[in-house]
């Protein structure tokens, strides 16, 4: 009826989670078309990888999905280990599971907080989530000396053993977090405004999710029972008892709920892992030299989905080619299909529920 309005949402916009630029075509407030423009955070990580040794690239993987650096480190190191057949001690494997799950909790907490923020719950859930995440970040600070870019996992192990007393800190945190989760449920999950805003908004059907190769909590929210930790266990995930959380409809609320449930499951995994850590030496020295030939593609279950590293080696100290298959990239590609015909407020809600990290999309 009316004139079409083209709104440039981003690259600087409070709820585009970084530097995403969406070109929205609006009719009044209804989104008719959406064209995402990427590349504002592009650093050409893949080219960097070709010019660094295997070990030197680990700090760069921190900067991909900066909310889940441990998982990126882990994914990359596992891919290199698969490529070059490097052995890892059992203790290192257990510790890797613990840190990966802790970081998953931290990352999901940020996702929950920012999603609530996108729905207009001014900062309060965000701050609660961040103060919980802070405890994990402090713990990681203790482990590896950094709060965001951890650079903790090494090819063949970890950069250092956990300091004594860490297991008690983790146990305390788990107890605390279970209590906090009740609070999130009271504040958000069943709040009538929250439900009205996120229920049945941006429904991602099973078929669409698979066609767009969406992964992680978003895929599971669409009702696909698929979790790499369960279906193709890497590390020692097959030794733990946990559930794969799935949604029913695939709307924004389901995606939120799946994340919230996954926090519980991650805490369960950590609880089990911390009881079963074997003795041994998890440390892998930096001055080990790696070289080899071949190629490997390895996927790990990141908080945001399946992170894949495709490494090609041709005998040098550097990878010949390193392709990073980032989960958020595929997850974002479904956005235009999801928000067509929705209100601009709902578009923000859907974008928030996809939980993208631009560092990973632009690489």
């Amino acid at each position, binding site marked *: 009826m009316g004139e079409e309005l083209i709104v440039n949402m981003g690259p600087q916009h409070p709820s585009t989670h970084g530097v995403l630029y969406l070109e929205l075509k609006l009719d009044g407030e209804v989104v008719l078309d959406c064209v995402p423009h*990427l590349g504002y955070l592009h650093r*050409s990580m893949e*080219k960097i990888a070709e010019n660094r040794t295997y070990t030197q690239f680990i700090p760069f993987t921190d900067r991909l999905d900066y909310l889940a650096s441990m998982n990126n480190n882990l994914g990359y190191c596992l891919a290199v280990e698969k490529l070059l057949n490097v052995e890892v001690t059992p203790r290192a494997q257990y510790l890797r599971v613990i840190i990966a799950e802790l970081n998953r909790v931290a990352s999901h907490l940020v996702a929950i907080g920012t999603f609530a923020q996108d729905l207009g719950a001014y900062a309060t859930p965000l701050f609660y989530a961040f103060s919980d995440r802070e405890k994990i970040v402090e713990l990681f600070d203790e482990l590896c000396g950094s709060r965001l870019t951890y650079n903790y996992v090494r090819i063949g192990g970890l950069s250092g053993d956990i300091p004594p007393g860490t297991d008690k800190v983790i146990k305390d945190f788990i107890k605390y977090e279970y209590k906090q989760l009740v609070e999130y449920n009271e504040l958000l999950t069943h709040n009538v405004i929250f439900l009205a805003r996120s229920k049945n908004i941006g429904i991602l059907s099973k078929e669409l999710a698979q*066609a*767009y190769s969406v992964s992680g909590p978003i895929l599971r929210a669409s009702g696909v029972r698929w979790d790499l930790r369960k279906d193709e266990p890497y590390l020692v995930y097959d030794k733990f008892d946990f559930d794969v959380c799935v949604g029913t409809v695939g709307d924004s609320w389901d995606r939120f709920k799946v994340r919230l449930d996954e926090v519980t499951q991650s805490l369960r995994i950590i609880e089990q892992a911390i009881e079963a850590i074997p003795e041994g030496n998890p440390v892998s020295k930096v001055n080990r030299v790696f070289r080899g030939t071949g190629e490997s*593609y390895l996927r790990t279950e990141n908080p945001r989905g399946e992170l894949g590293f495709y490494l090609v080696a041709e005998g040098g100290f550097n990878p010949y080619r390193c392709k990073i298959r980032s989960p958020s*990239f*595929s997850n974002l590609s479904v956005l235009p299909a999801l928000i067509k015909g929705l209100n601009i407020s709902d578009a923000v809600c859907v974008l928030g529920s996809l939980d993208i990290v631009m560092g990973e999309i632009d690489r």
Partner: protein
Amino acid sequence: MLINDTQKKIKDKFPSLAVEIVGSALVVPKSSLLEVATFLKNELSFENCHSVTAVDRKDKMEAVYHLYSTSNHIMLTLKVILPMDDLTVESLYLLWPSANWLERETFDFFGIKFLHHPDLRRIMNPDEWTDYPLRKDFKRDDFIPRPQSTGLKG
């Protein structure tokens, strides 16, 4: 192994095709990529196109597809070898919508033209740029592969 089964199935379906295994990947001739991919998707239930990328081997270009079958738990690496003077390959967008952005990305960085792609623009780099940065022969005056500090001897 699993990849051999897949090869055998493809062989049975298309007896005239030269489908070979190189390393852990299945190499398909460029001309028949679309048929093979359709077969893989519809009959061998590879529902997921995980990543599309390319590897620059200096004398040739490899387009690499990672396909995944959720029901059979098989990861298949499909490769198409392209000569450097003819970097065109059929787009798989209609089979897997996820290939849309992934192919755009590959085009952006390697310059492989995907035929019949609905929207083949650069995705990360500026539209007006003409270089393809992930090629091995990429050269620019202001591009330093690795910043060199003086005194570096190794």
